[in-house]
């Protein structure tokens, strides 16, 4: 195996480990941190089914963003849907042997890469040209978009121009990562950049704003049932405080018996 293949193989496992451990820690943190009060935002679902429907609309359609701003919604949604389709298409590289037929359904969507890139360019445009959004942007916000753009464009270059990379080799390399049969990878520069930035993205996922992905599912304004009057909702720390402080509170209030 060449030196460059060894480095990229090692980088893959490193970034994957950072991603998995980092995300597990974050998700654990979100799980154990209680939401002590009922704070769903209107229009609130009154049932658990309603919450599931609401969350599905948020995650699939970006409902709230649609209400907020049609352009941001359009570009954001294009990017995310494009990215999802592109990601699923990548399964064929990692899958050892022949791909199950179900994946063939997404194969026609190779043009999703354009949706992704157009979305990103739109979002970048807004960040640069809309004064309000420029004001709230940090360097990392631009960098994130640039990184995704390079990933998207380098991928599209490989798919749609004559700069194809050796797909068989990619498959051997990628599926080798999964099955621990490590193999050499193609060394065209756009492929290496593409791959390297994906590793970077994986590694920074748990320490950046990409945490919006698990975040939405834990957002109390979106995932709570509006049933405060019907059920007593109480967090463990509040319950403990209730028991510990019962006497002290009476003293502080004065008038009690």
């Amino acid at each position, binding site marked *: 195996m060449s030196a460059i293949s060894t480095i990229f193989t090692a980088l893959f496992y490193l970034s994957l480990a950072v991603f998995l451990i980092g995300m597990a820690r974050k998700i654990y943190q979100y799980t154990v941190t209680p939401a002590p009060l009922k704070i769903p*935002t*209107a*229009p609130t679902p009154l049932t658990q089914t309603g919450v599931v429907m609401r969350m599905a609309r948020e995650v699939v359609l970006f409902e709230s963003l649609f*209400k907020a701003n049609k352009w941001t919604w359009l570009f954001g949604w294009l990017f995310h849907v494009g990215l999802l389709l592109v990601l699923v298409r990548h399964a064929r590289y990692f899958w050892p042997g022949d791909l199950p037929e179900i994946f063939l359904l997404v194969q026609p969507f190779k043009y999703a890469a354009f949706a992704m890139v157009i979305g990103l360019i739109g979002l970048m445009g807004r960040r640069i040209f809309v004064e309000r959004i420029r004001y709230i*942007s940090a360097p990392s916000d631009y960098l994130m978009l640039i990184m995704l753009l390079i990933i998207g464009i380098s991928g599209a270059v490989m798919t749609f121009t004559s700069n194809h990379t050796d797909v068989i080799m990619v498959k051997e390399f990628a599926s080798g990562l999964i099955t621990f049969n490590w193999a050499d990878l193609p060394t065209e520069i756009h492929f290496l950049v593409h791959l390297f930035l994906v590793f970077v993205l994986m590694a920074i996922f748990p320490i950046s*704003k990409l945490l919006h992905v698990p975040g939405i599912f834990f957002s109390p304004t979106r995932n709570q049932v509006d049933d*405060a009057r019907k059920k007593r909702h109480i967090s463990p720390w509040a319950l403990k405080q209730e028991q510990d*402080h019962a006497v002290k509170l009476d003293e502080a209030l004065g008038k009690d018996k």
Partner: protein
Amino acid sequence: MAAKEFDIPVLPTYLEIPEIKEGIMEGDGPFKSSEQFQNPLGFPGEKVDNWQEVAIEKMGELKSKYRSVQVFLDSCVKCGACTDKCHYFLGSSDPKNMPVARQDLFRSVYRRHFTFAGKYFPKLVGAKELDDEMLDDWYNYFHQCSQCRRCSVFCPYGIDTAEISMAAREVLDAVGVGQKYCNQILGKAITIGNNLGLPEPALRDTLLDLEEEIEEETGIAVKYPLDVKGAEILLITPSADFFAEPHIDGLIGYGKVFHEDGVSWTMSSYASEGANFGMFIGSYDIMRKAALRIRKAALDLEVSRVMVGECGHAWRVAYSFWNTLTGVGAGATDEFGLKLQNQLDSRYPQPQHIIEYTHDLIQRGKLKFDKSVNDDRNVTFHDSCNVARATNMGGIPNGQFILPREVIKAVCNNYVDMERSTIKESTFCCGGGGGLLTDDLMEIRIKGAMPRMQALKEVEKTDGVNTLVAICAICKSQFSKVLPKFDFDPYMIVSAHQLVSEAIIMEKPQTDDSVTQEAEEVTE
């Protein structure tokens, strides 16, 4: 008595997103609290020496106690969806009044102290140190947020600036930099029982005067019972209802409705406040302390129903938080909650809003109205933010929008809604909520009222609207003050129950005396 001169916004024909004007709302913020108001709440009297240390420790504590804080700080992608949603930004143009920028005051410090990227690459991710300048910005700009939650409706992750603003105010209190208005009032609320510091004899006198006034005017003895043990309903209403205009006309309306229903009811001198400013300062403990007085009053007076008057954040605290804080509600499995819930009548929602009650009576045909009395009025309804975005009424989806409108339409003939994007879940705050209803914040109050005033101006032009109804004590006080600044009649703001009071046909003279005679009077 605002500290500096400022221009009152001119109402545009259409609401436009302003260009940002950096630093236009910079300042010292509202009057700071002093030792005398801080200490009773358990806060340091002045800025402590090691305040940075204390503040960072407090931030760490809060993010481990509130998932909202932790998730919201992590999840923001700076998409900008919220940037044009805050009434204070629309009215002032100060970019730090954009919800995300307001959160970023807090988030930048969180990143600096609690995240890998912020610790090692602060410039890259916009992480900042909590220095004096930053703390001053916190104090100033977190007191330019009315915690109305409009931004949260539009955020793709539901990030609620109110949660961040409450956390920031809690940190500020912990380092001894509290706001005088809220903390002074809270001191009175948790020792005397109401925000005005009104003791029992004064309250009793006021209510007697009110009874006389109504009897003189209508010839009917509508009673305002206080501390009546064994009454069915305990009414918890904002203390502004006892004194302020136009609030008191709403209280008159509640009394008339109770009278017509013939139900026995009472107020409590021990818990004579619906408002709970503990929510504004973000303190679970103080909010609970204030709410516990209501629990005690309900237990002592042995009532079977707890009802809440017209007050926005009070209804949020009551509807969403009381069950958690004190057990006023249903479905408890713990000893503490059960003690009260066994006493409460489970056939009714606990707590119940006065609008739900009146609405129910109207539905059952128990109230008669002469709607023509209100024919000189062209009415519109201002959805108060806490009611609209944080509560429900009637247990039906969007009931909090439906019920008040149905009550209003049952008592007057001419009703029209304002522009859809300014009502219901998208309602614009009156500009005075969240602990901002103080004269030292008059500039931001007036500027923040602009978007609501613009929508009102539109229906004034198109439909001749001359009456603005609200079901929130803060909205009513705020509108009375700011309406004239935008060339409206300050008396156009009324309670929903004022309209009820004017249209109701009283058919049951003198029946409730028997009820009060049976009940035992409690005096402390």
